[in-house]
């Protein structure tokens, strides 16, 4: 069974996205990066991110990740912010009753995007 299947597939993504995005928006460490964005489009991006972090199907390349976050890196996006997102993701999954082991696996998938998101490739 893949990680994506263990977590419950796309239904689990749907159930998680609102809770996760709400936590991110309310997080003072990172909320300023979301000021003025279209919330509906942003929620769709969060869903794509969760699908990826859950080990689900996606075709994002490292270059896509770099391009998609370049404007945020220019505004000061750094490792602390990346850590905050991963922490919020872990807290959301914990709230939903996901085991620590699976949360660790999700965090590890998210971790693989760190260098490209922060533009260090």
């Amino acid at each position, binding site marked *: 069974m893949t990680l994506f299947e263990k977590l419950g597939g796309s239904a689990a993504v749907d159930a998680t996205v609102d809770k996760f995005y709400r936590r991110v928006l309310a997080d003072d460490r990172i909320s300023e990066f979301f000021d003025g964005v279209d919330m509906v489009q942003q929620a769709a991006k969060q869903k*794509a991110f969760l699908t990826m972090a859950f080990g689900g199907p996606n075709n994002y390349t490292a270059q896509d990740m770099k391009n998609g976050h370049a404007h945020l890196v220019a505004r000061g996006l750094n490792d602390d912010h990346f850590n905050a997102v991963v922490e919020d993701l872990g807290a959301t999954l914990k709230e939903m009753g996901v085991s620590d082991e699976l949360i660790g696996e999700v965090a590890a998938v998210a971790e693989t995007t760190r260098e490209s998101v922060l533009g260090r490739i």
Partner: protein
Amino acid sequence: MPVFWFEDHEIKAEDAETVLSALLRNGFSVKNGCQAGACQSCLLGSSKSLGEAAQRGLDDDLIARGAFLSCQAKAETVTRVSRLADDILPTLPAVVTSMKRVSTDVLLLALDVPNWKPSPGRFIRLTHPNGVTRPYSVATPVWESNSLVQLHVRLIPGGELSDRLVQTKVGDSFTIQGPYGKCYYRSAKGDENILLIGSGTGIAPLYSIATDALERGHRGKINLYFGSATSARAYFREELDELSQKYPNFRASVHVDADAEGSDLIGSPLTAAQLEHPNMDGYKAYLCGHPGLVRAAQKRCYLAGANLSDISADAFEAA
């Protein structure tokens, strides 16, 4: 080998290839993102309904417009696809039947559009014979006759269409296109709490949505918070009063920046809504009017627990 049409071009796809992949391979530029059916960047329109995975997660309005996820649909399932245009709806003739100035800067305009179905909360594009087009939300209460389109026009000094509308007479001809937008009553259970928050001519769609929900027998509470610069400029009070008298589960309050009269309250309609509803888990919210208010309300309602899919927002940008 599957073949389909993309606008004027015949596209030869490979077996089991997606529409998006075939278009990109043939050198067409199509916006795309996750290629997993989640981000909705790659939407195109199809001449026929595709259903299932190709339309998963799209809202009713997009489905009605034939939108599908080009990264999910296989080339062999489509015949003719195109970029999504807003103007695929027919243009209808509209004749002015009445006009009424209800405040210093708002004109109520009624038009007769044969074969029109009221679409409470959604908006239409109104085109003057000289070609100027502006979007207006439909204020028609749901019980009105099927051919009546009521609009609340905010008159903007020097506005290209505003200036002409002031001089409009009964019998003048316009055209309309629509309806557009996602701000309309939807309820699976009929018992959710509904918040309607807005300002200025945002009252038009909010009122219309309220009539739709109430006439369909919505059982949950429906609270409307209406913001205005001053009490004198808050219009449509009689209509709101009639609605609260007819339906015990409907309540409206007026919130003004200054010069409060009667029972009007000083302050933001959003702040008042938040104070009375600190936890919006399970709520539905409709937000219409000034863009700053609408965006702030969208975020606050979401952070207070409402699902994003239960928050319908329509920011009125001045053209």
